[in-house]
């Protein structure tokens, strides 16, 4: 057959002429491409001709350019026809989207495309494995660390920055393992105290501070790998083949004393600092590919913010413990007299030899000589402070006075009324009472509330979100379908599909002893009606601007998708406002409204507004829920921080107590309140407001969309 014969230059030109005729002329022939293609194998020739004909059907010029570049591209793509095909398809799709110009760029740049193609084939992108790494690093000890993409490999002590793609190794497994190496290495910097020392100050004391930093980094890497080797022996075995440079260093007789000095796992960052001083003039820094860089400026900035906020939080928690104790003592002694201030003490408990492998930090916190068991929040705070400072300093142990959040209110009291004077918004508004915990009574009709229409936005936010979370949406659908279809056997029914043997036997027995036969002897199978009504209260305060707002909206899209399947009645309201005179509720979906295009546009149109006065919003939604007939009523708030408002008195304890009161009122109406928050300090006030088991803290904002739906499922099954 002719098609199986290899074509010579003339035959090839003849074939090409057939397809490229519209763009050939007296000065431009197919001779050159034909000459190049004549040297290819039969298979490659056939493949090339096939695609010339396909491309020519779309655009002859593009086909000509393809033919001209084809033989070079074959080399770039290492004779891999599958790879070639993806390059061709990419160029055609570029033509469809942006025209000839872009498709030509793709066709001419076959080398770059091939490099990327092979990199992607064996490489791993951070997006693919970010979640796995984040969970993995969470399982290791220490404060939760986020994973983010960056051009450099480093940590700022709260986030691990990793490259977008790793494809330097032969397989996906190997490239993933390299990501794991980077993750563990950066985690080790945080956990084993690289940042506990003021590095900037130390490094600046050297004449060549750049060299000092690089050398310190090398020394610290040796120390960290020793710790990792001891703590994670399996991991260390897995990564040995990535450590060639490191082992070379180990063999170098200049470096051997450093390795020897760091061979003990009890070495600290101080050991590395001392070694730097000792060997600064004797050693030159080396480049170890996995160690990235030390970003001292960023770390110092993040650390200083964290130290201040954690100190505040720690002292606040102590003051709460102290206040509780005083309260109990007063009750016990039945007195109103002032009780003496408590004294806290903390000491590190030396670990038993058998416990040392766990790496845990054991502290004993005592109040007036009595050991107290710290809450989970307190434990993780102690762990984080220890990571930064290496101890709990004395001044941390002075409780913050009667409620730290009160101290935030020291500013002069602004009056909301001055700002919104007159009858602004009072017309057609609803009024709600507000709880004043200092006076211990309600301020009557204190909050002026209006439902404000949300301007819908008709953009592609919903389809984009659904596509972004495609796999999650699929599994949510499956999961919620199962919930919906849960068949229940209702025993002892007056009618049904089957006889309830237990009931029938009992009935027969009753009959035999002279009692009346019960009619309830059937089993009825039916889908259990969930009879749940839920309202979501979404924080639209200014602090949610940007990412948080975006994730909140995404969470709502996934929620709506799931709840539509489940059939639970649900409503979504946003809330925000400025001062008591301007409390605004933004209806996004009413309880009986369908999840239609208008609702979708409103979800898409949710924007960050002003402040977070919460009490009125809870009262308003409780009022709305009260009017709904349902066996179980839920009020779920999505929030990013504690209640606060323009009225400075509302910040701190006043706002917390008012919200708490509003939640009590809701509970009295048989409504279950629940809060989902991303505020890391939530442990400080949410258990007080909602109760310990009635809130969930989502540390990583990226997780909000998937977690919210998951929490709802668990909450209602």
């Amino acid at each position, binding site marked *: 057959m002719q098609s199986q014969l290899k074509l010579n230059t003339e035959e090839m030109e003849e074939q090409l002429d057939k397809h490229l005729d519209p763009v050939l002329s007296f000065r431009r022939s197919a001779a050159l491409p034909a000459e190049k293609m004549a040297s290819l194998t039969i298979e490659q020739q056939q493949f090339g001709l096939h695609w010339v004909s396909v491309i020519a059907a779309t655009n002859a010029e593009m086909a000509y350019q393809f033919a001209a570049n084809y033989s070079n591209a074959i080399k770039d793509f290492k004779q891999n026809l599958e790879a070639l095909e993806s390059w061709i398809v990419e160029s055609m799709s570029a033509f469809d989207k942006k025209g000839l110009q872009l498709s030509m760029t793709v066709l001419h740049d076959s080398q770059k495309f091939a490099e990327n193609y092979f990199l992607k084939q064996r490489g791993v992108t951070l997006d693919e494995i970010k*979640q*796995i*790494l*984040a*969970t*993995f690093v*969470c*399982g*290791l*000890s220490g404060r*939760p660390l986020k994973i983010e993409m960056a051009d450099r490999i480093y940590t700022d002590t709260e986030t691990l920055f990793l490259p977008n793609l790793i494809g330097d190794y032969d397989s996906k497994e190997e490239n993933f393992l390299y990501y*794991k190496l980077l993750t*563990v290495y950066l985690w080790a910097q945080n956990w084993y105290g690289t940042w506990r020392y003021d590095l900037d100050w130390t490094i600046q004391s050297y004449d060549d501070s750049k060299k000092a930093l690089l050398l310190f980094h090398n020394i610290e890497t040796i120390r960290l790998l020793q710790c990792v080797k001891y703590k*994670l*022996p*399996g*991991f260390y075995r*897995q990564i040995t083949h990535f450590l060639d440079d490191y082992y070379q260093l180990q063999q170098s007789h200049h470096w051997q004393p450093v390795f020897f000095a760091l061979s003990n796992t009890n070495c600290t960052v101080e050991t590395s600092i001392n070694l730097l001083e000792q060997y600064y003039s004797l050693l030159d820094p080396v480049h170890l590919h996995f160690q990235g860089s030390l970003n001292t400026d960023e770390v110092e900035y993040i650390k200083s913010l964290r130290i201040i906020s954690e100190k505040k939080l720690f002292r606040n928690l102590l003051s709460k413990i102290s206040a509780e104790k005083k309260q109990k003592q007063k009750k016990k002694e039945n007195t109103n007299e002032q009780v003496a201030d408590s004294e806290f003490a903390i000491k590190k408990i030396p670990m*038993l030899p*058998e*416990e040392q*492998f*766990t790496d*845990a930090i054991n502290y004993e916190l005592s109040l007036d000589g009595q050991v107290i068991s710290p809450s989970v929040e307190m434990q993780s705070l102690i762990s984080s402070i220890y990571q930064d400072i290496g101890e709990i300093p004395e001044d941390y142990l002075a409780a913050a006075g009667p409620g730290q959040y009160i101290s935030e209110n020291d500013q002069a009291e602004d009056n909301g009324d001055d700002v919104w004077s007159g009858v602004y918004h009072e017309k057609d508004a609803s009024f709600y009472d507000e709880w004043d915990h200092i006076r211990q009574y309600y301020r009557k009709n204190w909050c002026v509330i209006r439902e404000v229409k949300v301007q819908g936005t008709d953009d592609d936010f919903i389809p984009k979100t659904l596509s972004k979370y495609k796999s999650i949406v699929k599994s949510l659908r499956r999961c919620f379908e199962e919930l919906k279809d849960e068949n229940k*056997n209702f*025993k002892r029914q007056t009618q049904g599909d089957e006889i309830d043997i*237990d009931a029938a*036997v*009992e009935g*027969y*027995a*009753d009959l*035999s*002893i002279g009692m009346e036969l019960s009619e309830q002897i059937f089993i009825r199978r039916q889908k259990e009606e969930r009879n749940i009504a839920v309202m979501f209260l979404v924080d639209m305060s200014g602090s949610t601007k940007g990412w948080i707002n975006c994730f909140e909206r995404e969470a709502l899209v996934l929620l709506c998708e799931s709840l539509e399947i489940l059939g639970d009645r649900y409503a979504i309201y946003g809330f925000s406002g400025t001062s008591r005179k301007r409390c605004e509720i933004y209806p996004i979906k009413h309880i009986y409204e369908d999840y239609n295009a208008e609702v979708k546009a409103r979800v898409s149109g949710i924007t960050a507004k002003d402040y977070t006065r919460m009490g009125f919003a809870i009262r308003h939604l409780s009022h709305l829920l009260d009017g709904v007939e349902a066996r*179980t009523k*839920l009020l779920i708030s999505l929030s990013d921080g504690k209640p606060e408002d323009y009225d400075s008195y509302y910040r701190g304890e006043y706002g917390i107590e008012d919200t708490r009161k509003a939640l009590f009122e809701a509970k009295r109406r048989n409504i*279950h309140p*629940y809060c989902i928050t991303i505020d890391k300090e939530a442990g400080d006030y949410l258990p007080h407001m909602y109760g310990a*088991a*009635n809130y*969930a*803290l989502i*540390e990583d904002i990226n997780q909000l969309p998937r977690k919210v739906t998951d*929490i709802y499922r*668990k*909450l*209602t*099954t």
Partner: protein
Amino acid sequence: MESGSQEVLAEEYVIKHEPYYEAVNDELRIFESAYQNKLPILLKGPTGCGKTRFMEHMAWRLKRPLITVSCHDDLTASDLVGRYLITSGETVWVDGPLAKSVRAGAICYLDEVIEARKDTSVVIHPLTDNRRILPMEKKGVVLKAEDEFCLAVSYNPGYQSVLKDLKQSTRQRFVALEFDYPNVETEIKILVKETDISPDLAKALIQFAHMTRNLKGNGLDEGASTRLLVHAALLIKDGIDPRTACKTSIAQALTDDTEILSAINELCSSLF
């Protein structure tokens, strides 16, 4: 060792050999005191932390029969109290496990009581206050509990479902004992004693358990329980590769989420 299956009446099921239990705090003394004072007991704690084993141990210590009922959402009051059955055309009353316990002065342990139907509280409440009686509505009698009778219930407060919560009117009748995962030292002892593995292997398993417990609230509802560690240890002792053993008996038991599973398996492979 006794061999072969044996049929023993529930009310006569006395534990003859001491079930291994490692006390963590003063739970043994508190249980004994509550028992002597005829107070019902509520065990709170995550799954697999030793609640059931504790009950077996206490039954052995107090030399009382132990009747355990695993509660489920179809369990009604009459399942606990008893019902009439027909034998040879005649009606015969058959006691339920609670009635059997009350008569025999046994310890009745209602495991995961929160799962049972709400009507069970009708029979639980009169037994848990000073009346200590069991109303048998069908028979029209009340059964006075023997002095040795004891009611214990357990539940896992980790569930955050609004549909499943122990009502105040029920929970405020019990002496509550809180259970949690044992500390490292105790957990090593438990693993070594239960499975006869080396302390080093026990340490590695516990380290792995701690890693999974760090994930509580971050993808997992609960971390690996001591029970799961015992399972993994038994498999490893039987020659299964530690990574495979942890994967099958711990990771897969904890979650179905593929990403979390991958992360847990990575944690496991970092240790073994």
